[in-house]
């Protein structure tokens, strides 16, 4: 059985890649994808730990796995809203370059 360290390390790598993507890229679609990457890195860590700690006080425990479902649901909703926003932004600005969407500055 693969030790949990590996999973965690992979998860950390994925999360870092996702975070970098969010910070570096200007295309919101890519950013969304990077966010998905970060979420899924978290999911990986969840399931990895869920698997390693199956018993909690002698009882079977599926907290990690259940949490992953929640994350997937929230991510789906987020993407749906985010893509709808993108469509609307594109309709008004004919452009979705994220560095030009700074009209909410103080």
């Amino acid at each position, binding site marked *: 059985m693969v030790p949990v360290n590996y999973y965690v390390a992979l998860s950390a790598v994925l999360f870092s890649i996702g975070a970098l993507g969010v910070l570096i890229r200007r295309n919101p679609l890519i950013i969304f994808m990077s966010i998905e990457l970060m979420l899924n890195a978290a999911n990986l860590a969840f399931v990895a730990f869920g698997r390693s700690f199956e018993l909690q006080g002698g009882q079977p425990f599926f907290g990690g796995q259940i949490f992953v479902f929640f994350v997937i649901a929230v991510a789906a909703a987020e993407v749906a809203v985010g893509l709808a926003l993108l469509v609307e932004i594109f309709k008004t600005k004919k452009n979705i370059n994220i560095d030009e*969407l700074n009209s909410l*500055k103080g």
Partner: protein
Amino acid sequence: MHLSETVSSGFFFLAPWLVFAPLTGLLINAIFGKRFSERTIGTVASLASGAAFVVSVLLAYSVSLNHGEMVRWRLAEWIHIGSLSLDWTFRIDSLSATMMLVVSGVGTLIHIYAIGYMHEDVRFKHEEGRFARFFMFLNLFIAAMMILVSGDSYMMLFVGWEGVGLCSFLLIGFWYEMDTLARPSWANSNAAKKAFITNRVGDFGFLIAGFLMFWYLGSFQFDEVFKAAPAVAESAPWVIVAITLFMLIGVAGKSAQIPLYIWLPDAMAGPTPVSALIHAATMVTAGVYLVTRSASIYTLVPQAQYIVAMVGAGTALFAATIAVGQYDIKKVLAYSTISQLGFMVAAVGMGAYVAGMFHLITHAFFKALLFLSAGSVILGLERGHHAHAHHAAHDDHGKGKKKKDDHGHAEEEHGEVFDPGDMRNMGGLRKTMPVTFWLYIIGTLALAGIFPFAGFWSKDEILLDASLHFTSIYWQLAIAAFFTAFYMGRQIWMVFFGEARSDAAKHAQESPKVMTVPLMVLAALSVLGGALNLPFEGFHNLGHWLGHTLGEVEGLPLDLKVAGISTALALLAIVISWFLYGRNPLKTGQIDPLKKPLGFVFTGMENKWFVDEGYFALIINPFKKASAFLADVIDWRFWHDFVHDTVILGTYNWLSEIALNKYADQKGIDAFANWLGTATQWISENMRKIQNGFVRSYALSVMLGVVLILGYLIFK
């Protein structure tokens, strides 16, 4: 003191009506006067005064029933503070009853006369609405005078004293917005103010006397004061001297003696009935009454008595000389009044109280008669003037000239104003006003002291007393009597004899019955008044009557030498006056025949010896200057400019501008508030740079925050 306890018979319970009867008349006229006719107003007022007379008669009768015993009728509690206890008590004795009879008797006659007089006066002055007001003031005067003569303490007397002063003021200034010739001016109200202020000087003396009295004698009540006075006169005679002399100042104010007589001639600005009632017959005798009432105090200090007598005699002579040089018919009588008041004051000063009171009574009769007759003369001329002007205006109509609505007025606007009181405008009135002429003759003979008129008996009694005790006073009074006869003779010749010196005098008309009938009553009293106290054994009626109050004195018999001298002087004076004014009657525009032989002396008489000017130079102008100095320098420049503007306002300005505004407010509070604002601004300006709108930088900061927190959690 209750009726049932002390008095078995008599009408003493009516005493309050002395005051309340005139007050009732006043109230009725005050409330309904606007709706009443003139006749009703006059009747109400006269009845009110007449009721007071009836009460006076009943009281005098009661006093005689009571064998001259004094009765005190307590009406109300007045002041009770500590040991001071003053009540409104009526004091009814032979002295106050005599005064009541004179005041209400003469007063009632003058009320009746005034119905006729004011009827025309208000029309000549185009102010008919003032008729009721006049009678209200007259009734108020009677009430105040009654309080004065019936008071049982010096304070109650003072209430009346001030009350009559007020009425005098109101009535002198009755035509307050015009002068005596009805031209718009403040002359009359100035005369009223002069009278009031001069009287204040006297009242000040009276008040000081009252304070001294209370301090050293412990009371204001007559009997208590008289009881306490002898002991104080023993231990501290100067107290009594001070009281009597301060009281003399009050007497000089009210009774028009030197040096405070100056108000009385000006008081002639009032309507003539007022001159007769207040400024000749009654109010001005209040001072004489006061001295008589205080006889018990005055007799303790002969030196004060002597001063009183000298003041009286000096006034008598001084005023008589001024009367010689006057042209206004009322001014002559005014100075004559001052002079006669001088006789009375001299008499009471010498201790001849009965003689003083006797002269007071007869003088009230014949001086009221003279004044009212003078009023009749003035109105007669006024009528003649208007009738003539009317006539002339009618002629103008015939010639087709401009129409005039008010002939009198129209003429006054064109030519100079006609003065109906100036004796130089009169002459020959004997024929046009015969009734007034004969009445005036009676009054003149009584005043001049011709046998057997009332003035002869009363004046002679004073002269006799003076000749026995004070020779210098006797001669002053005798010479004053000579002048009296002279100026009255001059007046008679100028007014009633010779040729009419103006159209008005030519057309003068006799006065109506309502005016002449009261005059006839007064004339009868002037003829018979001497019978009150004839200088024969068994005829000293007034002496006996007043003796109940003042202590019995032996009546003096007639002294033929004194009577002879005064009669001779009077007759001589009349002859001289005939020689100067009767033999060659004055022509129109002619100067007074005395002017040439007497020269500057007559100029002095004409100008009242420049006493008014002297007062102006000595007192009034320095006073005005002092007031101007106080107002301008002290009040305005020092107090207002310096103290208020510089010191107070400056300090305040400095405090608010420099200390509070500049330092505390601007540099402290403002600076702190501004710093708060600036700091907030600076912070927000720097903070807003973070809020740049780039979503990636937000994300970076979120990440950095997470890293920081995690780092802290891991490495703590």
